């Protein structure tokens, strides 16, 4: 400072030296070494001072040689390598201490007592105020700077020590679940106590994200005994739901059923067992598995209907097997006319009924393969039986038998006489007519007409008659309704010179009929 004052030019003429002097170094070449020396000494002193002070609290057993200031920085790489996150360590290894302090850290940082700002200020202060060129400006300023540096260094040191000490301590549950949410690596193994695990699970459930919940559930399952795990699942239905969904996806049936039973969801467990049985490749296996299920999960009182259905299925399969065995030796014409294309075993009840109607329609009702027997076995109703018989009989053009099927048993002796006795009401007329014309079948016109005449509603009657070309009924209806135009329109649809055409023409030309 004195040296500087020496070169202060009081004269006005020389004053410009005062302003430019400091920058124009060539004038002060002789002074430079001194000043630099001073700088060095001061820095050295300050640094030594700083580090010696700080070292004392954290390393009580002082080694003689104070480490060079850089050493603390050099330890960081080893620190890096030491951090081994047990779960998925790959990404975390690159995390440097500086990154830990990156401003991205959320407000709820794990170490709220350590201000993060000072760390940043070290970086900003260092080049400006403490740079070597501006160093010897003011002793007081220096003092302040040193103190500040010292404090900051101390804080950082403490922070670092703390992280070092806590690297194997479980971080805050919210921090962990946050990292799970962002798919960042975490060390879950640090949560040792059950309370910690539950807290972690709670935090995960709070995140809503199923993936986070599942990750924590996996961890808990891995680290606690089965009974405790089940207890936890019972307490946390959300977690249980995720876990069950996972087991379903994983097709881990045994665990799925055990879990469901443990959660008291026995009906669901029964359904799981049932579905497994359904996935079996052969019917024989299915039967074995279903029988097993009937003896275990299906005993649930809420599954009465299901149990009954499974029993019926088992009975049906038994019957189907018998029929299959007998029919395989049967060389009757029916089997060559309508070759079987699939095995009967395992087919639904209705298909079995269809099969029975097709191949065993004429069997005595007491025979095991007769339609009536199948109907009784499967608890099917009259409608289903009639429907299937008609469908199969139409296929074989057995029109007389169709009439029998439609006819109430007591009236069979009267068969052949025309009249409205056909019990068409079991199968709705619209379907009955459709069935009769299935696959371009040609039912006798007489049968269709008789069926149509049973219809009470004139409009329906006419509509169906027109659709299925029941000329007689069309003529009757139109004459009753005195609707000549409709009959004329109907005439146009008929092929000329057919008998229907002539009949219609005759009706139109009939002078007795009265038209509107």
């Amino acid at each position, binding site marked *: 400072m004195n040296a500087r004052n020496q070169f202060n030019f009081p004269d006005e003429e020389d004053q410009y030296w005062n302003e430019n002097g400091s920058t124009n170094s060539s004038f002060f070449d002789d002074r430079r070494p001194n000043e630099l020396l001073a700088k060095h000494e001061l820095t050295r002193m300050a640094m030594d001072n700083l580090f010696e002070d700080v070292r004392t609290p954290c390393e009580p057993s002082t080694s003689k040689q104070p480490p060079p200031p850089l050493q603390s920085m050099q330890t960081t790489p080893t620190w890096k390598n030491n951090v081994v996150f047990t779960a998925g360590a790959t990404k975390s290894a690159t995390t440097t201490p500086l990154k830990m302090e990156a401003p991205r850290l959320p407000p709820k940082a794990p170490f709220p007592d350590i201000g993060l700002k000072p760390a940043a200020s070290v970086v900003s202060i260092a080049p400006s105020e403490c740079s070597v060129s501006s160093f010897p400006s003011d002793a007081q300023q220096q003092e302040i700077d040193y103190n500040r540096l010292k404090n900051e260094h101390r804080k950082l040191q403490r922070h670092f020590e703390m992280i070092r000490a806590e690297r194997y301590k479980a971080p805050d549950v919210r921090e962990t679940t946050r990292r799970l949410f962002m798919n960042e690596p975490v060390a879950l193994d640090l949560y040792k106590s059950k309370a910690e695990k539950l807290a972690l699970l709670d935090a995960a459930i709070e995140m809503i994200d199923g993936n986070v919940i599942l*990750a924590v559930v996996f961890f808990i399952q891995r680290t606690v005994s089965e009974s405790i795990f089940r207890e936890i699942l019972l307490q946390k239905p959300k977690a249980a739901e995720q876990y069950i969904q996972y087991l379903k996806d994983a097709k881990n049936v045994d665990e799925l059923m055990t879990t469901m039973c443990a959660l008291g969801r026995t009906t669901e467990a029964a359904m799981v067992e049932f579905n497994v049985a359904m996935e079996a490749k052969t019917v024989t296996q299915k039967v074995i598995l279903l029988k097993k299920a009937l003896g275990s999960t299906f005993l649930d009182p809420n599954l009465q*209907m299901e149990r009954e259905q499974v029993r019926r299925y088992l009975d049906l399969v038994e019957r189907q097997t018998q029929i299959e065995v007998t029919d395989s030796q049967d060389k009757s014409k029916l089997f060559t006319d309508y070759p079987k294309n699939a095995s009967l075993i395992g087919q639904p009840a*209705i298909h079995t009924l269809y099969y029975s109607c097709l191949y065993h329609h004429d069997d005595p009702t007491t025979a095991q393969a007769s339609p009536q027997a199948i109907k009784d076995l499967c608890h099917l109703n009259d409608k289903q039986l009639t429907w299937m018989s008609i469908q199969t009989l139409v296929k074989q053009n057995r029109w007389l038998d169709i009439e029998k099927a439609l006819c109430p048993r007591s009236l069979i002796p009267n068969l052949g006489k025309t009249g409205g006795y056909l019990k068409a009401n079991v199968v709705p007329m619209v379907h009955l007519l459709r069935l009769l014309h299935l696959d371009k079948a040609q039912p006798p016109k007489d049968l269709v007409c008789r069926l149509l005449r049973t219809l009470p509603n004139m409009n329906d009657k006419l509509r169906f008659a027109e659709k299925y070309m029941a000329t007689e009924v069309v003529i009757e209806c139109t004459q009753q309704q005195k609707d000549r135009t409709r009959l004329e329109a109907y005439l146009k649809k008929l092929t000329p010179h057919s008998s229907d055409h002539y009949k219609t023409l005759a009706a139109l030309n009939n002078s007795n009929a009265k038209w509107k």
Partner: protein
Amino acid sequence: MENFIDQPLGLVSEMTRREFVHILETISGTKDLVVDRTLLRAFDRIANMSLLKQHGVAGVIPLRTDGPILTTSEAQKRIYLVRSSLQMAKTLCSLIRSEPNLSCAVIWVDRMLASCSKEFELHGVSGLVEEYDWSLSLVTIESDLFSLEIPLHLSTSSTGDIFTAANSLWQFQSLYGQIPTVYGIGERSDEVWRVLRRLYVEKGEPRASPDQPVSHLFVLDRALDNASVFLTALTYESMLHDTFGISCGKVTFSGDVEERLKRTTGENGINEVENKTSKSKPVLLDNNDAVFSAVRNSHMTAVFPFLSSKAKEIQNNYGKGTSFDQVSDMKLFVSNELKSLKLQHRQLETHICACEVVLERTAMVNASERLEIEQAIIANTADLNTVFEYAENCMLMDHSPWQILLLICLASMMNNGLPGKLLNSFKESFISSYGIAFLSVLNTLSKKKLLMTRSILSSSTSLPNVIGVQPHEGNSTLPFIVKRLSLVPAATEFVNDFKNPQKMNYVFSGAYTPVMCQVVADVMMQGFNITDLKKTFNGKVFVEENSFVPAERRPDSRMRKAIMVFFCGGVTYAEIAALRLLAQLNSFRIIIVATNIIHRETYIKCLGDVSQL
């Protein structure tokens, strides 16, 4: 490749594409891209082959699980692009282990899941492959329709699509700015919103931007309205979807349509070769197809009249070609109009054939009778015996079991459960007809309260005059919602004019307005009334205000901003059509976003928790 930026919400697609390119560039060397089949069409919308080639992709191969994957010889690496699921992780494990010398990378769509990572670890695959996360986000289906294309079975399960939905909303807002006003209804919507808040904390809260094209966002929960899915909708697009299945805006017609097309084009002498190349190729359905854009939202009864008038018009235009005297006129006609005429001609033929097949198939399953019954059910005038008799006839005719379940579930919901005797006999016949395997489906549907026995208590309240009784717990029943929002018109105001529809219920032939669409319409007209909606749905309702405009105020179409409607759990084409009509009638712009577009049969299968049937 076309530029996304000019398209509506194009920035989202652009960013998705750039992110993918970034991942491709991160993976060194030439590579084969093996793509999950469920992602193919959606992926095709983001990146085309030339773009992929530019970034070192030698070939794109669909992922097969049944055999070895044929790859191009020059590729050094293989990249699997898959939707993350446990099933997929298992497949990948076996694929990767079968070819240990091949260097692989996996791009998980949306993100790596804990279950996948566990599977990889278990099979020693972790560390063998490079792993990346990539979110597909909003796939543009149409200028007003975006889908996340999440498979339905994922979005109906509990693990769900919540993160994906929230993430896509975050992405959208980070690009276009925060949406000023947000309304949410339903449990799932609430969860999506809470996850979104979490994303704000992690990834940064979007800033408000004056350029934000969306002024209001509705986050809606599918679970609140199953009826719209169970009912048969009658718009053309919806019926096409039911019949052929539209996926990602494309449809593959079945053989009978192709055959018809071939026959007609043969008669008209249009180039056969051209037709052959288009055979069994998926047809793109969008507004660029002039014919389709005109009829897509029309009621089926209005489609044929339009198509025939269009046919006449085209014929007249062709006729113009023969009436020219001057050669120059003819030249002008050939160079200007002929091409577009031919294109229209072909489009028209396609749609006429498709339409015929749709009608034929619906006639085959007695659709008109079914529609009558559906309308009676929703109007609560149906005789349940008739409904069950119809169902029984359908079973005897061997119709699709799923269609029957849709109908019966609707009846159950609308009647607060069904009489036990009827329901039990239905279940018995159902199993007799379709096999014992349906036992678990019926059980699951019962458990989800979609197919339930009417309790003695509720049977007394289901009389038409007291259906407005609110249950004490759980979501509101369908009859209650129907009454609160007046979704079913009174018999007097039943309108049958479907050519110029004035009401959203035209999608169901005037019988019913989809719940969600009615909510949007009500808010549009009267503003958002949170207490009212809470009472209606008896569930979570939230509202968020990020602007000075009070959230209760109704949206103003003069602001020239769009309303975004986000469906968690999927949307149906019927709802889309209804919202389009709403937008048109009130001169609003409505952007529809959904986790997926629902196919009705798939939906009921997912509800029945079917994996194998």
